[in-house]
């Protein structure tokens, strides 16, 4: 989609009838995200247990860490036995694994994918490059700190992290969710303006709605 596709214009139906469209308003629902208020006691605990035991990962290899995802899916490390599986679409996933450095171009796609995921959603960031830039700390095209653009639940260090480290990271994420601390999406909703300001500072040609889901 190019920028012109997002401008207001008139299109014609197959019958030749003119239709006025404003893509940014007509195609997207851009309500602000809302933070989720936990229910009481046992019900929330049960829900958290259920969330923690079926982590569905979005299959989006954003960086070089994606190469360790396939060993994780296959017999040697077999993450499926921990209830972790990979899904092709954001609508079905609850965990976004940011596998390494993010260039500005990818960050744009990552934000869109993240916002399309349903609550509750968690972000696991791999590698030193998501923490402080890692190897690419002085590169003009990679972001240095992921937590300025998306709320991160668990960081897994290393360059690149081994599959064992990833499994340990997922265990840590489970613990946090069970303890009711997996509230990245709430943080995103509460500090929405701050996150958006940071994102817009580095994505120069912002041509998407503010929140799309």
């Amino acid at each position, binding site marked *: *989609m190019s920028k012109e596709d997002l401008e207001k214009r008139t*299109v*014609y139906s*197959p019958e030749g009838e003119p239709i006025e469209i404003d893509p940014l308003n007509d195609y997207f629902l851009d309500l602000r995200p809302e933070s989720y208020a936990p229910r009481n006691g046992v019900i929330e605990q049960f829900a958290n247990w259920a969330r923690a035991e079926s982590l569905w990962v*979005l*299959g*989006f*290899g*954003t*960086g*070089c860490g*994606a*190469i*360790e995802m*396939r*060993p994780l*899916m*296959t*017999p*040697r490390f077999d993450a499926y036995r921990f209830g972790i599986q990979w899904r*092709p679409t*954001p609508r079905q996933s609850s965990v976004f694994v940011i596998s390494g*450095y993010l*260039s500005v*171009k*990818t960050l744009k*796609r990552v934000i869109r*994918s993240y916002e399309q995921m349903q609550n509750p959603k968690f972000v696991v960031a791999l590698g030193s490059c998501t923490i402080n830039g890692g*190897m*690419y700390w*002085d*590169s*003009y*095209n*990679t972001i240095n700190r992921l937590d300025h653009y998306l709320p991160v639940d668990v960081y897994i260090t290393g*360059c*690149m992290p*081994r599959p064992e480290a990833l499994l340990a990271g997922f265990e840590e994420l489970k613990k946090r969710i069970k303890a009711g601390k997996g509230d990245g999406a709430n943080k995103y909703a509460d500090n929405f303006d701050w996150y958006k300001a940071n994102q817009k500072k580095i994505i120069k040609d912002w041509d998407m709605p503010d929140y799309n889901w």
Partner: protein
Amino acid sequence: MSKKFFSWNEDRSLYPPAKPDGTIDIDLSSHKYLKIWHGPQHPGITGNMSLELTLLGDEVMACETHVGYLHRGFEKLMERRKYIQCFPIVCRVAVPEPDFNEYCFASATEELAGIEIPEAAKWLRTLVLEMARLQSYLMWVGGQAGAFGQGIIGQWTLYCRDLVLDRFEELTGGRIYHMYIIPGGVRGLLPDGFRERMEETLRIIERFMKDVHSVMFNNSVFKKRSVGMGVIEPEWINRFGIVGPNARAAGVPMDVRKDDPYLKYPELDFEPVTGTDSDIYTRADVRRRDLLLSVDLIRQIMVKIPDSGEIRAKTPNVLHWKIPAGETYSRAECTRGEFGYYMVSDGSEYPRRVNVRGPSYTHAVSLLEKMIINVNIADVAGLMVSLHTYPPEIER
């Protein structure tokens, strides 16, 4: 127009006529076409890149490749790092085969600095490069089978790849990024008992590859979808800069290991694997036989490789290492074809310019955009994987 474009239609007069250069005029407002993005967040894409497809029914009419999602600006970063500081970052250029980056960068540096590396280091480098080819092919087989719906092949070959990575870990200490090849030589000798464990790994791989051959290559679904699909014409080879197995499947025996022999390849006995039909099936078969050739070459290397000896030539203090001014190009044959580094030095401690020539650069952009026309949308993933592209080496 009452005809519905649901799938391949025999009557080609309904489709827009192609201009002499193969492109067509697409009028999106006619509501016949559908524009979709294949990637970057898509399970059927090789890595982080995307295709902007224009469809008529389920047939691709036009395609634009979009890359740049993995751009880190290596060539810029290297300009402000000393030669020795570049070594940790060069291996990150092409993730699945980091050793080729290390080798090409090291050999270009050594050539400019006039350093001759010891025999044992040459053998060890040859071994590491051949192992890198092996593991990259093993991952590719799983990807190709997965693109045509055979998940089990990937489970087998990735298990085999993990075994190769274990050998890498023994030899170099790293699983994915090894940083084993350093200027002047390599970092270590073979560990004790490495030969036996390597031999066992190779035997397991051969056993699994027999199964892969019967399950994948004799499978009627795979054959039906891949034979005659995605043909590369032999005259495109030089026109589009096609290298490696993609060219060899068209019958052109283009292999840097033979054409411009480096390291110890002249002492090894092999012939480049070629095919004739140049479709997806032939390319897959060429790669499978190339994989088995790698197994054979590793066996040959294991016989000839010395157990002891000098592994590192003397280099000046690397923190004050000034490389004499000059320019050179060093190349090696990775699984996708010719991988090369063009290096320019201006006599200072920092490289003036390093340019990475990744083989996917030509395959994934100009060639893919040409080949994908009139392909069914369901076969796009299979076609892309059959070209064996890795996005990180396109944009660096």
